[in-house]
């Protein structure tokens, strides 16, 4: 077994917090052969990152212990190796890249200096000129344009994708035999992710290194892995050849996870792109003709359809860039640039785009949370732009918003009860405190939470529960329209699936109109009736979801869809 590179045998990693001991990794075993990619996949808290950090022994010794198991890297047990010997392996033979490209580079050193430092440390004989030459080569290897000039750039001058390339270049500069990648593309946009994944595959082929790849995304697993291990609560519940695990999962947990992937959710519901266009417009009682008409009006962007709930016309949100002593405006950031569309009543419209394309700003501008520079937003025929706060007040209750970040979407100082009943009181819903309390309890039950959660504070809840409370807050006012701003992107896939199913159920019973802002194409395909694709402040493509996702016309949409990692792309 000379081609066996890393052998993890019965690894246990315990973390102490106060008096408690958490079994973060609880007896996992796997092998990685030379030139192979092993993916560890699991939800947050499953111990996948901890197990990778254990391999590098990067966990603080004060809180982490390894009561059992060994990690054998070429006949050497990394867990018992003295520090000096370990340092020779770290970086030069096992390298690691991390999730957050914004914080994993030192902001005060140029990227070249950071790579050179690593090189010279592991190759003490290397002269500065040689090191610089190898640094440039490494940057060229990761396809950073103008590598020779950019060596002297500082991290803030690079985009997120470029930084991740630099991280990879740094990891690869010493030609390691094993590269550990801890969610390297999670913080990146889909198109950038596709490029990075392609780059990593190419580099692996050319250098013959092994890859321990940690991710939560089964699409990425499908694209990258030869072998895959599924982790749940510190245990490896299933491992095997990727295709086998993804096609015929044996363990119940793997089956459950795979079923929750939006792609598969959509498949179950029979609404995957290209299957049958008529199936993609499942609209409630009011009749299919209405929605078909409004679908057309949406597709054309004109007003021919039946009265839409929301009409957006020539909407612009420009943020001025001010410079100089007198802070005069030199230019504008055109977050939303001349956008027009209509949202039909009772429909779910997905607004898709990458970070910075202005989709969140557009959602907020519709709700008048962001002051539009020009243009008009009409709800049921009433112009909302330019209304005074007082005149806007009655409309506030009819349009609501749910947010992305479960950490900041609820006021940490207020009881859930106060969060839910205060808006009701302002909008005269419920005659007295008792009735409002009753309604708030109903709303919590509607989002499948317990009634007595009313008497708790937000920090006592998990991320998924908080997102449900956030939804309940939007629902208590009986709005006609809700902007869902990436509400599932911070959640694990199984929790995401539950929230999406909940949204569909609520939409069906309340005839809600949803603008679902997201970057996740799988979610779009599962959830939405219509899709708008946004790029650099403009809507570049719109239409029924099946049409947009199945037969994209715009070049950007095509690129976006091609970048999405999918389960069917098993390597």
């Amino acid at each position, binding site marked *: 077994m000379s081609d066996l590179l890393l052998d993890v045998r019965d690894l246990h990693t315990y973390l102490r917090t106060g008096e408690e001991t958490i079994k973060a990794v609880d007896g996992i075993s796997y092998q990685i052969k030379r030139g192979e990619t092993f993916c560890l996949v699991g939800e947050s808290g499953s111990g996948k990152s901890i197990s990778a950090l254990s391999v590098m022994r990067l966990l603080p010794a004060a809180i982490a212990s390894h009561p059992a198991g060994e990690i054998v890297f070429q006949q050497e047990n990394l867990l018992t190796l003295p520090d000096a010997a370990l340092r020779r392996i770290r970086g030069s033979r096992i390298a690691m890249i991390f999730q957050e490209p914004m914080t994993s580079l030192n902001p005060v050193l140029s990227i070249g200096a950071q790579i050179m430092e690593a090189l010279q440390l592991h190759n003490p004989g290397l002269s500065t000129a040689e090191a610089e030459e190898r640094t440039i080569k490494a940057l060229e290897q990761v396809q950073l344009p103008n590598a020779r000039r950019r060596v002297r750039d500082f991290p803030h001058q690079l985009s997120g994708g470029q930084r991740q390339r630099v991280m990879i270049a740094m990891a690869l500069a010493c030609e390691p035999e094993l590269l550990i990648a801890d969610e390297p593309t999670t913080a990146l946009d889909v198109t950038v992710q596709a490029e990075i994944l392609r780059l990593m595959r190419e580099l692996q082929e050319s250098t013959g290194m092994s890859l321990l790849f940690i991710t939560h995304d089964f699409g990425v697993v499908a694209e990258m892995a030869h072998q895959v291990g599924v982790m749940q609560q510190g245990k490896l519940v299933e491992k095997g050849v990727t295709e086998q695990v993804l096609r015929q999962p044996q363990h119940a947990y793997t089956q459950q996870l795979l079923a929750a992937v939006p792609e598969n959710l959509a498949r179950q519901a029979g609404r995957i792109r290209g299957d049958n266009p008529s199936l993609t417009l499942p609209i409630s009682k009011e009749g299919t003709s209405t929605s078909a008409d409004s679908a057309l009006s949406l597709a054309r962007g004109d007003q021919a359809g039946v009265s839409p709930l929301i009409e957006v016309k020539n909407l612009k949100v420009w943020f001025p860039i001010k410079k100089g002593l007198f802070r005069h405006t030199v230019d504008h950031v055109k977050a939303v640039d001349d956008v027009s569309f209509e949202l039909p009543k009772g429909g779910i419209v997905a607004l898709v785009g990458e970070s910075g394309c202005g989709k969140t700003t557009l959602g907020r501008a519709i*709700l008048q949370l962001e002051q539009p520079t020009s243009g008009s937003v009409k709800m049921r025929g009433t112009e909302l732009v330019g209304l005074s706060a007082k005149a806007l007040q009655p409309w506030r209750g009819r349009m609501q918003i749910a947010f992305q970040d479960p950490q*900041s979407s609820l006021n940490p100082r207020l009881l859930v009860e106060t969060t839910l009943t*205060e808006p009701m009181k302002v*909008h005269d819903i419920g005659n007295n405190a*008792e009735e409002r309390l009753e309604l708030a309890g109903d709303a919590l039950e509607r989002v499948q939470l317990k009634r007595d959660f009313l008497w708790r504070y937000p920090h006592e809840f998990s991320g998924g529960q908080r997102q449900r409370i956030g939804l309940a807050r939007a629902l208590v006012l009986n709005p006609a329209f809700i902007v869902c701003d990436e509400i599932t992107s911070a959640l694990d896939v199984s929790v995401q699936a539950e929230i999406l199913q909940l949204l569909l159920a609520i939409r069906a019973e309340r005839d809600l109109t949803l603008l679902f802002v997201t970057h996740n194409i799988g979610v779009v395909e599962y959830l939405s009736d219509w899709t708008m694709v946004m790029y650099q402040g403009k809507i570049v493509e719109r239409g029924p979801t099946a049409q947009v996702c199945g037969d994209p016309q715009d070049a950007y949409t095509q690129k976006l869809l091609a970048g999405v990692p999918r389960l069917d792309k098993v390597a």
Partner: protein
Amino acid sequence: MTNKAQLSKAQVSRESFGRMIWKRTLGGVGVKLALTWVGILVIAAVFAPFLANSMPLIMSKDGEVSMPVLRYLDTEDAAVLAAFVTLIGLWLLPMHLKLRSWLMWIVGVTAAVAVLASLMLKPPQLIIYDDFRTAAYTEVDWRLMPPIPYAPTDYLRDQRALPLQAPSIQHWLGTEENGGDVLSRMIHASRIALSIGIVATSIAMVIGVIIGGFMGYFSGLVDMIGMRLVEVFESIPTLFLLLTFVAFFGRSLYMMMIIIGVTSWSGYARYIRAEFLKLRKQDYVQAAVASGLPLRSILFRHMLPNGVAPLLVAMSFGVAAAILAEATLSFLGLGLVDAPSWGQMLNQAVKSATFNWWMAVFPGGAIFMTVFAYTLIGEAFRDAIDPTLARATGVN
């Protein structure tokens, strides 16, 4: 039925929130000591005329029972007493009032008592302390004297007591240069120390929170104007303004409070502005705006409690700084003329020809302890009000 149960649970939860904070604040040993010290100061300040005075509290002469001390109470004493009694009453009575009604009650009762007292109480303008040691007050059936039987301005001329005596059985903390009892003077001075700290800081807080809140929430032009105003006020040296006002308008405690308050709000405004700028973009504030909640609720319910933590620490330092400012002024000899204050006592310690340690150690120690205590309380409160730091004990 279930509804009833829930409502009662609401009451329990609302009521226990304040208690929870209180319990958590009291968690540490240091803060317990600090609160004890402040408690002692409060008791001393409120009951000063009953704790240290030259006249009997109650006496019986020829079968007639009288309370001489009451005759000499002035409006200020009455108002302080009323505020204290209202506070204790509201605390003990099983009424669940909101903070606002608490404040309304205390301010209302205090103001009413102050007005009544100024109309009804006519304390003698001139108090001749020697009288209390004549037969009229000594040859009685029985009498009860205060624990420290010397008024702060009773210089014991009739007893020909030597000034600047070291601590003894008779004068526990010694006497000052005029022969006044140091302990008695310190007890009466605690009133000035406490009130100037709390009132001046409250004035500064209210102004700072309102201006800073608007600056942070609206930003843009409001912020620009506000910041210029902050800069203007920051460039005013408080001490020299106080000196100027003292020179023009004479010495008044209330004037000092107002001047210290009006000149020191800029720090609070900056803190609140910074917090609000950050909080404004938080999703829950956006959600509050999207729900159409009134501005008052957004600012003071959704933003202020989340941005108050740095303010509480600043406030404890503010109280300490106000006490120090008054002490400095008195130390320079520009404080109140007749009423004793800790700073003025320190001044006496420095001015006399010999170093009298008791004149420096006790008032200096009191200033130090008070400033230290407020800092400890501020920090403990900051930790307690943060629910994410809630310990495992007893949170729901």
